[in-house]
């Protein structure tokens, strides 16, 4: 069968050295098939078993015994496990060795010293079509030659006893296609490797107004320096009528060496790229509150003083009654076993030196009145801020990967939709003034398509 690979050649040789045996091991298509089957089959594991979970998650999902197995084989991060990477390395070596081995043969086919053809072979082809035409040999031979050289390429002619044979071919170079695909795979893997070694994937939560020059790596959660600072000026989310988010947008300023460099909006699908670092909008949430407007009520005469206080700030209480410091903010304030939600906490230091902590839940603004102190602090208003969830990535390998992508598409196109095709036309002089024409052709793929093409050529030539 055409295209079938002959692996016998090497096997026949006996007493091979160890490097020869290794080379032979890696240059078989069988190995490629086995490796591909293993990669495909094991890839399923990672889609079923939770990836990058915590120890507790695994134990509660699969039990202690299975957890140990997961740890031994790195199934919690199987696509980066040693055995999975080993399979990919084997595939790479296989591709390289196979390609080198076969390219030396293909190269001789692509660049032959001399184009030769065997008429006998073409006469025996299954797709051979024969017809007679009421024209003399002399009148059509020139016509057919021009037709063949126009539609196919350079024509080689040979005189025979009863007339002549012509041969033309196209697409010999397309035999390189499969090597293009194979090198694209190597390029992809090199790109992925470069990205894995020199790149990072991190995330960053920035409250509106906040600035950061570090992001936090996925999994490890260690900080990584970006080389510049990002300030989130504003975050904005829009919703559809259905309540689903329509768009979220962060207004970011890049600060370099203490100077504002530029400001840009980023949205989902519209990231910011700067100095090899990509900044993406990925999520959002409500930020911790940082300032609050409080009514301070003197209880005996109900005198109200309104103050805006920031977290960490200390103010004088009215009438020199002491100091109040806003110490912080709790997302979940626990009051005698009840979760009262978000709350500010502050500390009152009375003029007698007595100091105690108070809590001001935002959902219950008048909560502090229950304390029955000299003052009651009432949460009047506070600014609800968002934080923006950014993804920060760096991947210097991405251009190798993209070149691999382009090469792969080109390679697939050449390999699957183009072929090396040879055409054969024989013209025989008949005794009566007509001629007998035979046409056939060979191809390295899509023989049915070739058969149809030969039939089309026959109809065209009959009309000439």
């Amino acid at each position, binding site marked *: 069968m055409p295209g079938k690979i002959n692996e016998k050649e090497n096997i026949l040789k006996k007493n091979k050295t160890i490097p020869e045996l290794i080379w032979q091991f890696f240059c078989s298509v069988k190995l490629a*098939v086995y490796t591909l089957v293993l990669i495909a089959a094991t*890839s399923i594991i990672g*889609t079923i078993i939770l990836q990058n979970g915590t120890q507790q998650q695994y134990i509660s999902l699969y039990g202690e015994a299975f957890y140990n197995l997961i740890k031994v084989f790195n199934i919690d991060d199987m696509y980066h496990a040693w055995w999975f990477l080993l399979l990919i390395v084997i595939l790479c070596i296989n591709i390289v060795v196979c390609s080198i081995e076969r390219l030396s043969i293909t190269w001789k086919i692509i660049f032959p010293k001399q184009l030769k053809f065997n008429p006998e072979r073409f006469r025996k082809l299954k797709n051979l079509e024969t017809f007679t035409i009421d024209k003399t040999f002399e009148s059509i031979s020139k016509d057919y030659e021009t037709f063949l050289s126009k539609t196919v390429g350079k024509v080689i002619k040979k005189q025979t006893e009863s007339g002549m044979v012509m041969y033309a071919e196209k697409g010999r170079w397309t035999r390189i296609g499969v090597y293009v695909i194979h090198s694209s795979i190597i390029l992809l893997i090199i790109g992925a490797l470069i990205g894995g070694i020199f790149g990072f994937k991190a995330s960053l939560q920035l409250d509106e107004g906040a600035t950061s020059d570090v992001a936090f790596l996925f999994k490890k959660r260690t900080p990584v320096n970006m080389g510049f600072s990002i300030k989130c000026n504003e975050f904005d989310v829009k919703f559809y009528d259905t309540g689903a988010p329509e*768009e979220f947008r962060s207004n970011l300023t890049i600060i370099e060496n203490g100077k504002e460099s530029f400001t840009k909006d980023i949205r989902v699908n519209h990231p910011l790229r700067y100095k090899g670092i990509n900044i993406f909008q990925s999520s959002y949430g409500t930020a911790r509150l940082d300032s609050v407007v409080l009514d301070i009520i003197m209880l005996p005469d109900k005198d109200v003083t309104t103050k805006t206080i920031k977290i960490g700030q200390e103010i004088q209480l009215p009438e020199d009654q002491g100091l109040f410091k806003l110490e912080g903010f709790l997302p979940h304030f626990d009051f005698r076993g009840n979760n009262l939600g978000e709350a500010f906490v502050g500390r009152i230091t009375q003029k007698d030196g007595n100091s105690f902590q108070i809590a001001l839940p935002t959902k219950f603004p008048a909560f502090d009145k229950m304390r029955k102190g000299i003052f009651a602090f009432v949460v009047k208003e506070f600014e609800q801020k968002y934080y923006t969830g950014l993804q920060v990535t760096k991947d210097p390998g*991405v251009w190798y990967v993209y070149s691999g992508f382009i090469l792969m*598409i080109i390679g697939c196109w050449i390999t699957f939709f183009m072929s090396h095709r040879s055409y054969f036309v024989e013209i025989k002089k008949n005794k009566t003034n007509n001629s007998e024409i035979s046409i056939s052709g060979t191809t390295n793929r899509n023989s049915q398509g070739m058969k149809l093409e030969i039939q089309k050529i026959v109809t065209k030539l009959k009309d000439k």
Partner: protein
Amino acid sequence: MNSSLALSSATFIYALASVFYIGSFAFKKQVLAKAGFIVLVIGFLDNTLGIILRWIESYQMGYGHAPFANMYESLVFFSWTVAILYIFVELKYKESIIGVFASPLIFLAIAYASLSPDISSKISPLIPALKSNWLIAHVITCFLGYSGFALAFGFSIIYFVKPKDPDATSIFAKLPSVELIDELTYQMVVFGFLFLTIGIITGAVWANSAWGKYWSWDPKETWSLITWFVYAIFMHLRMMKGWHGKNLAWVSIIGFIAVMFTYFGVNYVLSGLHSYA
């Protein structure tokens, strides 16, 4: 005329086409296959109209997006891609009997979309992650890939239907030769493979522009890669001795199961970034 009328009528026209094709096979009447082809083309035109109308309706509703955003729309488009590819194959290879193995697939996909109670045909707004020009390129190429594999699957079935030496008078005598089935299956796999490759690549480029990672081993991505591997195996096996006919047809069937799992299984069984369709 609105899109839901066009698409539900397309479902019934495709059903009729399948009936004609199967009838032509069962009663050995070539004329029924010819009628099946004409009905199929009408169904395809109706299907096209439905997709265009749905696109326009989405703009009228103020959402304004291509009709590739949920399971219903993807199934309708899947039928469309299988139909157009099959029409091309029948015109090129002039073999109408193979329609028996293709037309039911076209009908089943759109019927599942129209009749399944789990699939909403409502036009809904796009979530932020899908708002990208890559959506159209990604969906079209992926589904062209799926359609190639669907037809390869349909044609592979012929190996199991066709007896070794069919009686000249039996209904199996009309089935195409083994060489032609082999070629058709291979051509469909190759077509599917090219477009699945482009589909995965457009998805990767899109993911890189939306999330900053071209590959994150999300279940849908992984399963599309598994599918890609299965068909890569198919093409390498084809070069090895002893792999042809039924043996190879099994690989094409396993490949199509992987396609189906990538398409439906991942959404219903596993969770991930592709939860929309």
